[in-house]
């Protein structure tokens, strides 16, 4: 299955430079419809007003972390199937396992490169 380059993607990160980097990488991969939020609360509000094909979220944010956002998404009937990739500096195994148990589709450790992001998006959204 080819990647749907028209699918809306939500990038969630409290560091605007990182949002900009991911936006540019996604643009290079061909994705044009990219929105962003600075924490889980803002992301949830956007997820309830627009159907996203993928969420790419950081873990460590305030007030709502990416991990809490993931659990909210998986607990919501309307959102539970939304593909979710965690992109974070939290690299302890306990974090990765907790995220997997909570239903994350893939996990990228910062710093990362464009190829890693592309590979994970393809794995999650089906290429």
């Amino acid at each position, binding site marked *: 299955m080819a990647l749907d380059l028209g699918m809306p993607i939500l990038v969630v990160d409290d560091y605007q*430079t990182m949002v900009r*980097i991911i936006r540019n990488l996604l643009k290079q991969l061909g994705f044009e419809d990219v929105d962003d939020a600075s924490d889980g609360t803002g992301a949830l509000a956007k997820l309830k007003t627009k159907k996203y094909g993928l969420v790419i979220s950081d873990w460590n944010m305030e007030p709502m*972390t990416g991990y809490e956002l993931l659990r909210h998404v998986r607990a919501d009937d309307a959102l539970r199937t939304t593909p979710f990739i965690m992109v974070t*500096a*939290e690299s302890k195994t306990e*974090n990765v*396992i907790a995220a997997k148990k909570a239903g994350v589709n893939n996990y990228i*450790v910062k710093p990362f490169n464009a190829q890693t992001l592309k590979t994970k998006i393809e794995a999650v959204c089906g290429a």
Partner: protein
Amino acid sequence: MILAENTRARNARSQDVQSDNNPFAGSDHVLRQMTAGPRSALNRLLGGQEAPLEAPVPRATKADAASQAMAVNELREIADYITKLKRGIAALRAQELTRDRIPMAHDELGSVVAATASATNRIMESAEAMLAIKAKTLDEYRNQVEAHIGDIFEACTFQDITGQRISKVVEALGQLEKRLSQFSTVVNVRDGEAEHDPEEARRKARAEKLMLNGPQLKGPATPQDAIDALFS
């Protein structure tokens, strides 16, 4: 006359009863003698005059003398501890830390964050501009790309300045660590004896509950390959 004699006799009996039954009878004199050394030390410590012993010292028994010596030693130790504590507090130079070094470290780190953000933005602007180049000829394209590469080189000069700023902060932290270490040795207090700051406790509890470990030193704790294996 008879009344006066009766009163004297009653007072004498009363003193006898006091000295027979009251173990602290005459303790005022003993206490003065026991605290003479530490009082003197404390007076010197506080910059005051030594208080004269007002009353003559009564003869003491051997047991009294031993317990007095022990008490004097204990009080001397307390006086010594207070002297060391005062030296420790002075060596901490807390006012210099809070007035100069910590605000300086705060300002320097703020400048580092601002400089790195500014440099990152300049680099990204150049990269975005390169992606958007619409040149008619290869030479025109090359000239525009080279101009943006020049901007990127310039933006990278932040590293030298931020390196120097961070060195100053590291030096200030080293000083703080050294003084706190000396102070904790002087006062001989363990961490567990201090009361916990509620705000710090709340932050720690949140970090623990939400697994906010932050970036690991020397690269990720779990390599990307190992993570990929978990998701394959």
